[in-house]
C-alpha cells in the first residue's frame, strides 16, 4: 500500500510518515507533482492557510486528477482546511475548493489556539475512516475551523460550540485533529485509512 505524503513545506510531515510506517504501510514523501503516484494521498500541514495554498499550487491539477480516478485522500489539520474554498486567514489565496464552504477564525471565549485532547463524536457512523472508533480523545492544535456548506461533517468535537473535526465526501477525508499524534485512537483512524 503506497501512500504519497505531499511535502509542501508546511510543518511536521515526519510524524505522519512515522505513524504510517508504524502501521506497516509504505509511505512516500512527495515534493514534486510529477512524483505524485500511488494508491493514496495524504495532505498534512501545520501553519498558515495563505502560504499553504501558495505552496500547494503546483500540485492542484495532479490532486484533482487523482481524486477523479477515485484515489482516497486524507487531509490533516491545515490539510483539511485547504480542501475548502477559502479562509478568513488569507484574503488573497484560495483553497482547493473540493468541499464547499470556508474556514473561519474560531469564535469562542475559550483559549485559542484550541490545543490539546478533546472528545471526538462520530456523526456519520458509516464513514470508513471512523470504523470501530465509537468514542475517544484526539489531539487538536488549531485557531481556525472548517465550516463546510455541504453535508460532509463526519465527526465533531465540542469547544465552546460544535466544531467540525472530520469530513467525508466519497473518497475524500479530512481530520481537524492530528491522528498521528493522537495515541492509539489516532493510529486506529490512520489504520482505517490505510485499509480502505
Amino acid at each position, binding site marked *: 500500500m503506497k501512500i504519497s505524503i505531499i511535502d509542501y513545506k508546511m*510543518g*511536521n510531515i*515526519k*510524524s505522519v510518515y*512515522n*505513524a504510517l*510506517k*508504524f502501521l506497516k504501510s509504505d509511505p512516500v514523501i512527495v515534493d514534486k507533482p510529477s512524483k505524485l503516484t500511488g494508491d493514496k494521498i495524504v495532505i498534512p500541514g*501545520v*501553519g*498558515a492557510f495563505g502560504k499553504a495554498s501558495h505552496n500547494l499550487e503546483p500540485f492542484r491539477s495532479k490532486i484533482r486528477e487523482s481524486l477523479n480516478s477515485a484515489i482516497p485522500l486524507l487531509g490533516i489539520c491545515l490539510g483539511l482546511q485547504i480542501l475548502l474554498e477559502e479562509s478568513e486567514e488569507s484574503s488573497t489565496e484560495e483553497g482547493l475548493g473540493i468541499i464547499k464552504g470556508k474556514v473561519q477564525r474560531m469564535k469562542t471565549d*475559550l*483559549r*485559542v*489556539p*484550541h*490545543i*490539546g*485532547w*478533546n*472528545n471526538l463524536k462520530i456523526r456519520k457512523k458509516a464513514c470508513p475512516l471512523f470504523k470501530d472508533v465509537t468514542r475517544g*480523545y484526539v*489531539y487538536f*492544535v*488549531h*485557531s481556525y475551523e472548517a465550516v463546510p456548506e455541504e453535508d460532509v461533517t463526519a465527526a465533531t468535537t*465540542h*469547544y465552546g460550540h460544535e466544531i467540525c473535526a472530520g469530513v467525508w465526501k466519497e473518497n475524500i477525508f479530512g481530520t481537524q485533529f*492530528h491522528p*498521528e*499524534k*493522537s*495515541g*492509539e485512537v*489516532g*493510529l486506529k483512524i490512520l489504520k482505517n485509512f490505510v485499509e480502505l
Partner: protein
Amino acid sequence: MLCRRIIPCLDCDLAVPNGRVVKGIEFKKIRYAGVPWELAERYYKEGADEIVFLDITASHERRETMVKVIEKTVERVFVPLTIGGGIGSVEDARKVFNAGADKFSMNTAAIKNPKLISILAEYFGTQACVVAIDAKRRYIRESEEIGDKIVIDTPEGLCWYECSIYGGRRFTGKDAIRWAIDAEQLGAGEILLTSMDRDGTKDGYDLPLNKAVSDRVKIPIIASGGCGELAHMYQVFKKTNVSAALAASIFHYEEVYINELKQFLTNKGIMVRL
C-alpha cells in the same frame, strides 16, 4: 471540553552517544534515569499526553545527539513532542522540527531577544512556540517600592516573581508574570511555567504563581516544578486554570504511574484523557 494534560519531562544529558535522562535537584545532576526514547515510549504507553525533552547539556556536540534522540522517539511515540534547551534561532528550531518534534520551548533566547518569538511563530506557527519561564519568588515588605512589578499575595508572604535564564544561573530583574503576558502578545502558543522555588522539592506546585499567570493570559499554561505526589496534580488543576501539569522525578522512578495518576484525577472530577 478539553482534557487537562499530563506531561512527563525528561531532562537529557546529550554529552554521551545516545543521551541519557538525568534528574537533578536544583540543577545539580544526581541520578541517571535511562535512555531518553525508551523512557518516552514507556510514558506514551502509560498514557502521557505529551512528552517534553529538555536538553541540559552545555556542550556544542549535542545537536546531532538531539536529532538522533528525537528521531528514535517519534518512531514509537505518537503523542506530541516538545524540545527545549539551547534553541535560539530559526535554524535551531528547524533542526528539531525536521527531526520530528512538534514544538520547541525557549527561555534565555526569548528573554534576550523577544522578537525571536514572533519570528519563530511566523515560521512554524504559534502552536509550535512554547515560551519557558523560570520564575523565582522575591518577597517584599508591605510598604516596599518595587515599581511596576505584579505583586502576589502568597501564604508565605507578598512577593513578585523574577525571571531567571541560563538554567537558573542568572537573574534578570524581569517580572515573570508580566513577561508571560508579553510573550503571549509576541506570538507564544503556550507558556511552560516553572517555579524555581519548588523545582526538585516535591512540595507541590507554586499555586499562587500558576493561578496568577493562568488568570492573566489566554494561551495554555503548563505548570511545572514541585510535583511530588498525586495530590499535587489534583491541587494545581483544581485551584488554578493551568491546562497541563508537568512532572519528572515522580514518573522516572516509578513512584507514580501515569495511568494510575489519571484514574485518580478522574475519580476526583478532573477531566483527563483515559
